[in-house]
């Protein structure tokens, strides 16, 4: 009997999905690469002339009057803010998320499903809605200021909304479930006999945490960090709502190039830089996780 090879059937069955993804996601990315090397049109769009001006403009600016070149400080500030806020978000979500994931994983099985469900609800709730919710908390008459004034820490409301702090609080809030879920998955797979072995071999609680638990759940930590860092870096909704117009991140700056700024090639170049950073992070992730359990690390 003639049998179709798994490869042929596999590709055949996957073709509709691949075509859809090619038109709806992958193909257009190639066009972005092209646009990043064109000249901007007067109102929008592009003029079909090859140019590296967009890439130049990412880092430098040219004085209109005397053509002197200087670093594009405004751009660099936005880049730096994006990276800084994303790293801080990752750190904060880890510090809160690890104990939370540990807590869920160590509940009795019947309770565990409930706690997990409680983490999943915010995870699947519209990001916009969650950002609205946190906006209500950080604004001048919001929950946070009321609480701080009630405890007497501050005398009058702090201006938190439309600052970097608001963006940071917002991102940590909306991305926390993304940290907790992979950490939970890693801890759930963790063999608790290893902790017993650690205590049996005279380790203290902190030693067990540092020398046994953290190294073994490392793939989960890396996965959670990537899952938080990548969308933080490309965040658009949260900084737009909580940062106001001034405290832009890369995502908002890219949007600006397709709206008021009207420089499509610059927007395309910025997108590609963002994509590049994300790809580097993903490759690092793959290397870290595939290394795990391999050969001795300290040859």
């Amino acid at each position, binding site marked *: 009997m003639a049998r179709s090879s798994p490869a042929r059937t596999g590709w055949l069955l996957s073709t509709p999905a691949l075509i859809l993804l090619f038109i709806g996601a992958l193909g257009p990315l190639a066009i972005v690469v092209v646009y990043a090397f064109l000249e901007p049109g007067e109102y929008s769009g592009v003029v079909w002339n090859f140019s590296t001006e967009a890439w130049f403009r990412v880092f430098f600016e040219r004085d209109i009057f005397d053509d002197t070149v200087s670093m594009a400080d405004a751009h660099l500030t936005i880049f730096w803010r994006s990276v800084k806020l994303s790293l801080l978000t990752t750190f904060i979500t880890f510090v809160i998320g690890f104990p939370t994931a540990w807590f869920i994983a160590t509940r009795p099985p019947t309770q565990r499903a409930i706690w997990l469900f409680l983490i999943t609800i915010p995870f699947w709730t519209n990001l916009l809605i969650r950002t609205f919710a946190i906006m209500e908390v950080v604004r001048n008459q919001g929950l946070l200021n009321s609480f701080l004034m009630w405890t007497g820490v501050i005398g009058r409301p702090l201006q938190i909304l439309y600052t970097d702090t608001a963006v940071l609080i917002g991102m940590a809030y909306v991305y926390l479930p993304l940290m907790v879920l992979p950490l939970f998955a890693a801890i759930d797979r963790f*063999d608790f*006999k290893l902790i*017993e072995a*650690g205590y*049996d*071999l005279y*380790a*203290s609680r902190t030693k067990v945490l540092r020398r046994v638990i953290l190294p073994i759940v490392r793939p989960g930590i890396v996965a959670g960090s990537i899952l938080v860092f990548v969308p933080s870096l490309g965040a658009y909704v949260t900084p737009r709502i909580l940062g106001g117009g001034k405290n832009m991140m890369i995502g908002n700056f890219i949007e600006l190039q397709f709206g008021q700024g009207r420089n499509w090639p610059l927007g395309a170049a910025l997108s590609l830089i963002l994509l590049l950073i994300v790809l580097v992070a993903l490759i690092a992730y793959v290397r870290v996780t595939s290394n*795990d359990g391999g050969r001795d690390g300290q040859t």
Partner: protein
Amino acid sequence: MTENAAVEVQKASRVYGAGSSAVRALDEVSLTIRRGEFFTLLGPSGCGKTTLLRLIAGFETPTTGQILIDGKDVSQTPPNQRRVNTVFQSYALFPHLTVSQNIGFGLEMLGRPRAQIKDAVARMLALVKMEKMADRRPQMLSGGQQQRVALARALAPEPEVLLLDEPLSALDLKLRKEMQLELKRLQTETGITFVFVTHDQEEALTMSDRIGVMSAGNLLQVGAPREIYNRPVNRFVADFIGETNFLTATIRNGIPRLSNGEAVQAKGPARLDGKTVTLAVRPEQVRIDPEGPIHATIAQTVYFGTDTHCHLRLADGTELVARLQSPPSGDIGLKAGEKVRIGFVPGAVQMLEG
């Protein structure tokens, strides 16, 4: 109490849960394990042997009663402060550390100097013959090799007592036999007290200095292997250790008699006269003997190579197994349905009350 006691368990109980759903996993068990001995806790799963081991290790606390190690009450001492190490059933080797790092872990946690740790690790690697695997990760080792590393890791800090929780259960039969000898050798060489938990009676008999038989949270009998095998205190022990035939008899004038009046070659104390007792006799101590006092019918013979098992039925319907050595021809010459007479090896019959 005892001068050379490594572990003393004093009326230790362990209850899980509370109220009506409470389970008593260990019921006022008292036990003294001597320094330097190979002690085995033997019993079926759920008998409380692992619970007792975990109480000694410190992973669980006795609900009532005390655990003493080296004469000191450690009932409330956390496991990382007890000079006791465990070889886990699943080995629980740290997957992110090499064999050497695994072995050195305990000494490192005790804050020993580097040089000393290095020496100890080298010694342990040699002891378990794993020198060539020093830099491997545990997941690259076979089951038997992982077992050796787990042993070395637990022995490296030179504990007062080494606890072994069914460490051989994951190995295949051949490897298990090898490791039994290996364990015995290590115990003799190091002189450390071993407390070994198993449900395998053969393992217990071949390795131990003394055995404690457990059932349903109770310690039924403690003694040397021969003592346990030849002088079981009750039906459970007799049944659990080795194979045993049980006969019901009534003592008349100091002689136990079956229901049809046939006498059994055993002595019963006069105080039991008129009482019904259970007689236990090992299959290898049943003889087919034309002069024997008991009539039986052959039900079936099963060939086992060196032995042939002969299933017999007595007049009162009791079934009995005789283990006979197979003759060179392999055929013991007995057919199902054949009527024979049997007897027991003198002194082999155990009388159990109740």
